[in-house]
């Protein structure tokens, strides 16, 4: 990456608004500081640099949030976002888990991104995104603060996702009025998208009904170097080197990127044929260097006879959904709200 820096920076600047460029470049820079060559991670600095926001039970733009520990053993925290009733200005503590008051309320279990190592549910970027989802989809959003790599490798993040799924499906207050069941969707970006897939796979065998998966720039990979990886390496904020680092940090030691966690449709993957897998909305950014893997994922779902809608945004980069200042953002938000609506 070092050599062609000058060219690369100009290219990425051309395709995103300036404030988006500043935001993502800043992340890139900060993240470079945190990854150590020996595979360890400067967690203290990461937490210091991460811009965080507390939960807020006072509605802001009609949405309020609160944090719940759903597993004391692991300290698993989730942040729950809900729409405030029109009348109430300040829900008190008994109102936080008041039953949802609608015929059909989508409950979206959200897994934030960060390549398994960065960010938390209370990161400002994800808090903001979740709030948007609530407003758009009239949903309850449950953002899972899963354990991160490298301190917690595979399968911790999936285990936490699984715990959250079980917890959500057993909350009576999340049941929609129409059929007294919890209408669960799962959504995630980057590593969160990867988690969505694997938790959904686990759900299939257990009888918990997931109505749909939403994967935004999901994090997949494999040993092979795809064409998009080679072509786009270092060009739009992301390098192959850092992708490799994150996989090494997450996957079990001595495993390579064909491990099914990374490459679910690869040589070690399990077939999804004949399985009642949730319908999927897969959003792929054309300037994301791993987009070949993401497209292959959608293809894999299709081949297994699963319902999948692919949204390929050719000129989008990573993180386009963090700021509402581009067309891709709006297009995707519209698709998501349609995806979780009851008639779809």
């Amino acid at each position, binding site marked *: 990456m070092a050599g062609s*820096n000058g060219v690369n920076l100009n290219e990425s600047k051309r395709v995103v608004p300036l*404030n988006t460029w*500043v935001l993502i470049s*800043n992340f890139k820079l900060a993240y470079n500081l945190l990854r150590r060559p020996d595979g360890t991670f*400067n967690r*203290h600095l990461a937490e210091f640099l991460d811009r*965080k926001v507390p939960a807020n039970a006072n509605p802001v*733009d009609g949405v309020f949030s609160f944090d719940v520990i759903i597993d004391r053993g692991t300290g698993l925290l989730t942040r729950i976002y809900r729409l405030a009733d029109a009348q109430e200005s300040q829900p008190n503590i008994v109102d936080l888990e008041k039953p949802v008051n609608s015929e059909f309320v989508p409950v979206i279990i959200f897994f934030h991104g960060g390549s398994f190592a960065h960010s938390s549910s209370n990161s*400002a970027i994800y808090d903001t995104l979740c709030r948007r989802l609530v407003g758009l989809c009239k949903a309850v959003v449950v953002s899972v603060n899963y354990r991160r790599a490298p301190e917690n490798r595979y399968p911790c993040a999936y285990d936490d996702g699984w715990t959250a799924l079980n917890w959500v499906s057993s909350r009576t207050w999340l049941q929609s009025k129409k059929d007294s069941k919890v209408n669960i969707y799962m959504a995630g970006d980057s590593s969160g998208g990867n988690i969505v897939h694997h938790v959904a796979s686990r759900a299939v065998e257990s009888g918990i009904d997931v109505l749909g998966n939403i994967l935004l720039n999901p994090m997949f990979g494999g040993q092979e170097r795809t064409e998009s990886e080679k072509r786009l390496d270092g060009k739009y904020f992301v390098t192959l080197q850092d992708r490799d680092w994150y996989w090494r940090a997450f996957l079990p030691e001595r495993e390579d990127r064909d491990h099914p966690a990374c490459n679910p449709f690869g040589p070690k993957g399990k077939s999804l044929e004949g399985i009642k897998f949730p319908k999927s909305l897969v959003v792929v950014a054309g300037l994301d260097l791993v987009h070949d893997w993401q497209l292959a994922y959608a293809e894999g779902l299709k081949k297994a006879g699963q319902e999948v809608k692919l949204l390929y945004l050719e000129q989008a980069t990573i993180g386009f959904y963090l700021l509402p200042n581009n067309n891709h953002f709006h297009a995707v938000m519209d698709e998501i709200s349609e995806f979780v609506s009851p008639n779809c």
Partner: protein
Amino acid sequence: MKREHPNLHPQQLSEPSSLAAAGYSTSTSTSAMAPHTGKAKIWDEGESQQADGGMDELLAVLGYKVRSSDMAEVAQKLEQLEQVMGHAQEDGLSCLGSDSVHYNPSDLSTWLESMISELNPNLNLDPSADSLLAPAESSTITSIDFSDHKHHRQPKLFEESLSSEYDLKVIPGRAAFSQTQIDSRESKRLKTDLYQTSSSSSSSSATTIGSFGVSTESTRPVVLVDSQENGIRLVHLLMACAKAVQESNFPLGEALVKQIGFLAVSQAGVMRKVATYFAEALARRIYKLCPQNSTDHSLSDILQIHFYETCPYLKFAHFTANQAILEAFEGKKRVHVIDFSMNQGMQWPALMQALALRPGGPPAFRLTGIGPPAHDNTDHLQEVGWKLAQLAETIHVEFEYRGQLLFKPHIKPNPIAVLYDMPSCSGVKV
């Protein structure tokens, strides 16, 4: 092409340091991006989101304070930093993460500048920019005639900075004079909530104070060294030396401890003293220079008392032990404590006072102090006993004392407190 999204108003953050307090204008997202133009039209932020203070609203919601008017400049700094980091090795980058002190990361502009100055102190930036960087000269060694009054002025600066809330700060030379610098420090907040505590102190090993190494003679030319770097190196050096000593790697320790001496004198004030003492202690370990057993024990006794008073660890241990004793003796009329490592008897005044205040009145307190003989042939055990007896008298606790010399104690068991309660006699080891 504009799109109105009324429910996508920028959110108000509830954190106090957020500039949301100023109030946002409720403009909706406006700068639509035409994805296929390769032109730099995107840079025209004329109709872009602006709030009071000109902050970019969208970034503000995500926790970053950047003026819209500064956006291009911030982008430039990012590019600059990228260039500089691209030249550094991978190793250097993550070391930078742990070596630097990071200012408020929300204030992107300042944060980036501080990073740039860390990585490249020789960089001559545009002087018209509001630069907080140390000038290029400060990182080189120059000879300057240093007049006396300047010498006296320097320590005062350090006093100011030391007295402020956060001790772990880098003062990059000239920036110590800058008001904005101080503001950005003050605005750094450590928030604690259910999530992990962000902690900057654990990440910065740079307990440095920028200073100038000055020789005492003002007539001679003086060597000016940027000790900001030296401070960081000093800390690392001390740690490395301590580690070497711990691993009994004395050749390495010896090599390192010699270096410490040089670096320590380049510091001023507190850092200099601490580093010098550490270096001395490490040197003693390395060269196996144990202090000779002086005949005068009174000094070490006094030091021990001071240490006991200053440092909480021993006191706390004694406190917990005393609590256990008190609980064990509830209701008992007689207490006998056997202290196998009676030194100055620092533990017992507190216990005696607690006994005196016991509801129902104090028990009779008997203390047997066991210890090695003193080197100066004084009967120190008895002396301690007398002092405790005096205390007992003033607080009206019936007190008996016996000192017992024990030669060559192999073991140092904890004091044993013995219950006396009429017929039965039970011992409680505390």
